């Protein structure tokens, strides 16, 4: 094959993807930015009204709305807490898995992975049933019949958060478990011989050795938890009482498609893109650190 032919071949394979990542990735982002500086609503979509350029008008509306700031704040806090809890639970269970015998290990990993595989929709339904005010098992066990878990903002976030963690920790657990298994047994045995406790060997051996992997798990969790939609939308019926439990993703959906404020919805999309872009940069740096060659 000629030199020119050899350099052309890879692009042939990539063609469908490049042909799309450009329109399906570059173009939407470009359009997202463009829409966000226009007054674009249902009237403009149906073609009845001319689209008017309003510069940063949508952003001014958004940033001037205290509701946006409170939603942005609770999205960040909610995602941060979820990431921490998911990692703590996932890491603890990964360690338990390495110490468990064959059958308990199999049982636990199957049960956890089944939770992960279950649709977010059905998971949310089951948790709503467990926390139902009148018939829920939780209220019966705790003896607080009639207590409404979906009334107070933070209690609601707690229940929804637990549902999300229940869905997302198995992935973290399996990844960390695989990582721990890859650490030579001799290293951990040496630590145990020197009298290191489980706690010490976790922080002094497992964490430092798995740092690249942990970074990737953390970043993936951040992205995962930041874009939470289904659980909030389903369990709080679209954002809770007066939207008190809304997060950016739900807010953007309702603004754009509920109220047909496409321009304003795009502005929220731009804010989310910028936040995720920063996280992505960290991800690429972390991949680099693991010795990944781009």
């Amino acid at each position, binding site marked *: 094959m000629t030199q020119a032919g050899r*350099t052309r*071949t*890879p*692009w*042939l*394979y*990539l063609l*469908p*993807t*490049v042909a*799309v*990542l450009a329109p*399906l*990735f570059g173009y*939407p*982002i470009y359009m*997202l930015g463009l*829409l966000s500086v226009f007054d674009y609503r249902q009237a403009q*979509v149906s073609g009845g009204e001319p689209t008017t350029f309003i510069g940063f008008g949508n952003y001014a509306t958004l940033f001037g709305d205290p509701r946006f700031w409170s939603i942005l704040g609770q999205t960040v806090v909610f995602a941060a807490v979820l990431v921490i809890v998911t990692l703590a639970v996932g890491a603890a269970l990964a360690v*338990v898995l390495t110490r*468990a015998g064959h059958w*308990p*290990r199999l*049982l*636990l990993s*199957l*049960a*956890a*992975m*089944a939770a992960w*595989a*279950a*649709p*977010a*929709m*059905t998971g949310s*339904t*089951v948790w709503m*049933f*467990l926390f*139902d005010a009148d*018939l829920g098992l939780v209220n019966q066990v705790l003896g607080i019949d009639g207590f409404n878990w979906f009334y107070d903002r933070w209690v609601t976030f707690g229940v929804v958060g637990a549902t999300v963690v229940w869905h997302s920790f198995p992935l973290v657990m*399996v990844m960390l478990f*695989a990582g721990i298994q890859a650490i030579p047994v001799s290293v951990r045995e040496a630590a145990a011989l020197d009298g290191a406790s489980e706690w010490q060997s976790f922080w002094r051996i497992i964490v430092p050795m798995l740092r690249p*992997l942990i970074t990737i798990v953390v970043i993936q969790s951040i*992205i995962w938890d930041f874009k939470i*939609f289904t659980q909030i939308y389903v369990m709080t019926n679209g954002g809770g009482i007066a939207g008190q439990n809304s997060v950016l*993703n739900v807010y*953007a*959906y309702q603004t*754009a*498609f509920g109220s047909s404020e496409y321009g304003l919805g795009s502005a929220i*999309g731009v804010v989310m*893109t910028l936040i*995720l*872009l920063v*996280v992505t940069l960290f*991800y690429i740096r972390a991949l680099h650190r693991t*010795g990944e060659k*781009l």
Partner: protein
Amino acid sequence: MTRRRGLMWIAQHALAIALALMFLGPVVLVALTALMTDEQALTSRLWPEQWNWANFGDVFARSELLTWTVNTFVYASLATLFMLVSSVPAAYALARFRFRGRKLAFLVVISAMMLPPQVVAVPIYLVWARLDLTDSLWPLILPMLFGDAFSIFLLRQFLITIPRDYTDAARVDGCSDVRILFTVILPMARPAIAAVALFSFFYCWNDYYGPLLYAGVDQEGWTLSLGLATFKAFHSVQWNLTMAATLLVTAPVIIVFLFAQRVFIEGVTLTGVKG
């Protein structure tokens, strides 16, 4: 020492078993509730006094569950098939060839993987609306013909671990790049391909946002996730029916998963642990 070990062993197993029960508990509860009569479902008694198997039939009779299942299956299968056709060659190119722009292409793939589709939903939705393809699942299926970033990433991670010697040997024997892909790479990459196919299928099967946005108001075009949400809203006090529907929706996924879990775990570790 042995005794202490023995106790530790029991303690750790107890923990693992207790945790497993925590997960299985809700499943049992769901199953029990799904079998209760309407009257009993309104009480707090946990064990069905009458095993009301008719609930499962009722669910089908009172909703479009069958249509939703077919729709979901078609959506998930087509999307997965299209994804494989487009993503495998793309991953092959990224993993095997050195060419100008390769780094950039990979960075674009990673960025696309990180940005949830919801973020750019508005412009994409408007395009599909202009093409008059909203109120169908096509906007969720057709883009898969053009590669899925996560699948490309995962496949590439696997393909770079295949030693170059294999492909070099084939090339010396006069194989073309296409033949190398089909006769050398694909058979070796079978576990990774199985993993991305399953990931994709499950993602589509469980997807809620996509169908919510595109499937429209006509129940005939809905998927299971969408249908279940409405079913729950319509039968809000009939937890027995809602749980029967939940069970019917979830069971196939769990069963497939249990058979394929080894493939999954391999795939999961691929995303983070590089060989």
